[in-house]
């Protein structure tokens, strides 16, 4: 099915997320949509899939003008979207997930549906266990389920938003094969990504968005520097490495083990010094967050000891860890980090030391003004946190961590941020390192890990390897380790094993200053 978008506009307040985008995608094409964070990719795809209406503009499918008011509308017109995070119902069985959203009778026809779907899945070489519970599937399997569901509902245009995040290399290969087969059948695939090498590998055409506009299209063979220039219009550098001169030991983990759900690790020994930065690498959900939470007192260890500046804190509560100078900054900003509905000033009043019973609003405003300037937050003390942009929320979150902590635990501190925010944030963090604070952070971005860590631990299915010296590790070696390779293999010429976290592992990109994974 041919998709033609004409002059699509969508504004959020003063932000022009889509500023007059015109794009035509022929039937049977795998069209890549490239752009950095905030370029307007997701907005455009949400408009096309009926999640949000455009302010103005025309959508035509096979030359027919359509108006889509909801995702259900879109799927009736043959447009289906595969979201970054699977939108399914974990406690239900696969087959029931399929029946939700299917037009049908009061009593669902389970068996017919199951047979049709099984046949469909088989035609793409995908094995789908219809009786399994969705919660027990991997992200990759859930993605296949969603894909099959959309096809079964009659999707002829498939939109995939960052589909390779969190799936294994094998699953990525399968996904790409499936997409190619779909295109061969005349289906149209829109592949949204900011990973250059995936786009290179898969797409037949690429459209590049920047600041809400379509800035160019490219046909294979794609030239990486050309795409990068279109995406950023500038050379990107993460800034210089900053190496610390480590001091006394801040954190000592001995024989530490922890368990949460199916994630489990054991026997971890680690010493973190003042001013040191430890990066935790690995596919999401390999235990990195669990380690951070164990170090913060949020998850009790099942074995081993946690010592902070000599004091044994094993089994103590989060508040006791916090009192001793451990600061934990969660990944989800509005869910766990900040309090929607409260203003920036109120946030600072909440975390600062109390002065008496009554609130001194003037003081709150003063502190907020100070921190806003110090952390370059775009907003006023009276702004509620949810009215800030993601990058500014992240800065606010960091501004809430009182200076003079001993250990900062940061979960995905730069997720969803554009490169300039990443650089700014790290310049602030490194200031803290110079102030003798130690940092442990998780990231799925290899360049970030290598650039900003002193040492790196690599998590793979509950196995922890390292620590490795970041300065003498290459992106290829790290990518290899994350994909489950062992350290000794990493020295030879290696291939990128993993699809999700590896950014710069593709040989095409490795030489350029921009590696795809940076923009995860």
């Amino acid at each position, binding site marked *: 099915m041919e998709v033609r978008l004409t002059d699509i506009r969508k504004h*959020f307040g*003063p932000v022009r997320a889509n500023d007059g985008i015109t794009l035509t995608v022929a039937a049977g094409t795998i069209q890549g949509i490239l752009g950095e964070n*905030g370029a307007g990719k997701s907005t455009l795809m949400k408009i096309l899939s009926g999640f949000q209406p455009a302010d103005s503009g025309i959508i035509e499918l096979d030359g027919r003008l359509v108006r889509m008011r909801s995702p259900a509308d879109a799927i009736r017109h043959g447009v289906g979207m595969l979201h970054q995070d699977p939108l399914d119902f974990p406690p239900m069985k696969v087959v029931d997930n399929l029946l939700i959203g299917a037009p049908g009778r009061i009593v669902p026809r389970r068996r017919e549906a199951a047979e049709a779907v099984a046949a469909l899945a088989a035609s793409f070489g995908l094995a789908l266990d219809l009786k399994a519970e969705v919660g027990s599937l991997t992200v990759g399997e859930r993605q296949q389920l969603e894909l099959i569901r959309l096809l079964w509902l009659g999707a002829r245009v498939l939109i995939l938003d960052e589909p390779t995040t969190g799936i294994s290399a094998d699953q990525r290969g399968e996904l790409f094969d499936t997409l190619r087969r779909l295109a061969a059948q005349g289906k149209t695939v829109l592949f949204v990504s900011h990973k250059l090498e995936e786009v290179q590998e898969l797409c037949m055409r690429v459209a590049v968005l920047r600041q809400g506009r379509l800035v160019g299209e490219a046909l294979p063979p794609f030239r990486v520097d050309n795409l990068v220039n279109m995406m950023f219009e500038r050379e990107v550098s993460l800034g210089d490495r900053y190496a610390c001169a480590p001091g006394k030991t801040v954190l000592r983990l001995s024989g530490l083990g922890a368990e949460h759900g199916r994630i489990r690790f054991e026997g971890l020994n680690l010493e973190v010094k003042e001013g040191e930065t430890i990066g935790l690498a690995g596919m999401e959900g390999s235990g990195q967050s669990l380690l951070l939470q164990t170090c913060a007192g949020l998850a009790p260890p099942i074995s081993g000891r946690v010592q902070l500046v000599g004091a044994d804190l094993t089994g103590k509560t989060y508040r006791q860890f916090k009192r001793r100078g451990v600061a934990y900054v969660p990944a989800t900003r509005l869910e766990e980090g900040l309090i929607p509905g409260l203003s920036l000033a109120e946030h600072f009043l*909440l975390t600062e030391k109390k002065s008496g019973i009554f609130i001194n609003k003037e003081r709150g405003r003063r502190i907020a003004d100070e921190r806003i300037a110090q952390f370059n937050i775009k907003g*006023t003390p009276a702004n509620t946190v949810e009215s800030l942009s993601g990058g500014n929320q992240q800065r606010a979150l960091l501004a809430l961590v009182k200076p003079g902590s001993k250990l900062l635990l940061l979960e995905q501190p730069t997720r969803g941020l554009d490169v*300039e925010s990443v650089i700014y944030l790290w310049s602030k963090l490194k200031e803290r390192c110079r102030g003798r604070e130690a940092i442990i952070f998780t990231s799925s971005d290899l360049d970030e890990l290598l650039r900003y860590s002193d040492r790196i631990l690599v998590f793979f299915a509950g196995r922890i390897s390292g620590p490795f010296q970041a300065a003498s590790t290459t992106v290829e070696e790290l990518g290899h380790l994350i994909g489950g390779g062992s350290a000794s293999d990493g020295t030879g010429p290696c291939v990128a094993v993993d699809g999700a976290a590896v950014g710069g592992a593709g040989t095409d990109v490795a030489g350029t200053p921009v590696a795809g994974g940076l923009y995860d």
Partner: protein
Amino acid sequence: MTESGSTTPTPVPEGPTRPGPAEAGGKGRFSRRTWINLGLQLAALVLAFLLTSVVLLVAGAPPFQAYIEIAKGAAESFTDVSNVLVAWVPLLLASAGVLVTFAAGLWNIGVEGQIVLGAVLTTWVLRLLMATSLPPSLIIVLAMLAGILGGALWAALAGVLKTFGGVNEIFGGLGLNFVATALTLWLIFGPWKRPGIGSMSGTEPFPEQLGLPTLAGERLSLWSLALGLLAVIFVYILLERTHAGLRLKAVGLNRRAAFLLGVPTWQYALLAFFVCGGLAGLAGAIQVTAVYHRLIPSISSGYGFLGLMIGMLIAYRAIWVAPVALFFAALNIGSIQLPIVLKLDSTLSGVLQGALVLLVLLVEGARQRYLRRSRTRAV
């Protein structure tokens, strides 16, 4: 929305996407929006009356006359006005109390039972001390303090069930309401029954000196009126001006984030229950010492539930408690006349109050939808 990432070198104007409360984009627009809001609230009020009128017409009664009768019943004589104020006091206390639990994100359905327990403990202390030689005023103070404590502990029980037992406070509160009712009935027909035989009219009335002084010939006590108003002021200051109030709100808005930011969350949740229960217990104590002078089976008279309705109606803003509670009290007292004059049941005021709450919430929802739409369309 990551699209608003204002750190990209986009030509995005400085400042936030949405106008904060401090700057509402020009004075003219601000006042226009205020007028629109006021108009919508009035529309909800009119709609509530229309809906109730339909109910009345279906029941075969003349609506207009019914409203006149309610108004007359609430304000025809000084006694009517004083009776409205008598009903106003427990409403003030209950609504002020539930604002505290609402702020902490809790649905304190158990407020009814907390009023009852306040009344029970007040009665108990009065019975205990009435035969002693203590001065009556001291006995009253002690009894009322006991009432406050009773309500607070009953609420804390719901809080403990939630915090440590994982029982949702709505279910816990509801269950405790039933227990409280059963307890009063048992006391009235059992250990505290009148000499001879227990009856639904309650326990033996206390001597006059063990009650709060009332205006001559009326049931209104200026003491209880003052306590009710003080409670509202207390809650307003607590929520708007203190660190504790800010923390309560933080717990209510995002418990996990509040915890991670260092707020002792369950302690504050319990505190909210405790404060709300204390105020409800005070309401019960006042019903015993100033209004009924004894324990009666339905001592809470549904004021707790009405308080919850008022809390929702005013969207949890303490500043509106007093006027809205007064309106509800007037409706309640005014409709007492209805059965005599129009052969209508006095629960009509309940219909009107319920319709009002529903329609105000509906209008508010519609307004927010409209605002969201116009916000995305604007620029």
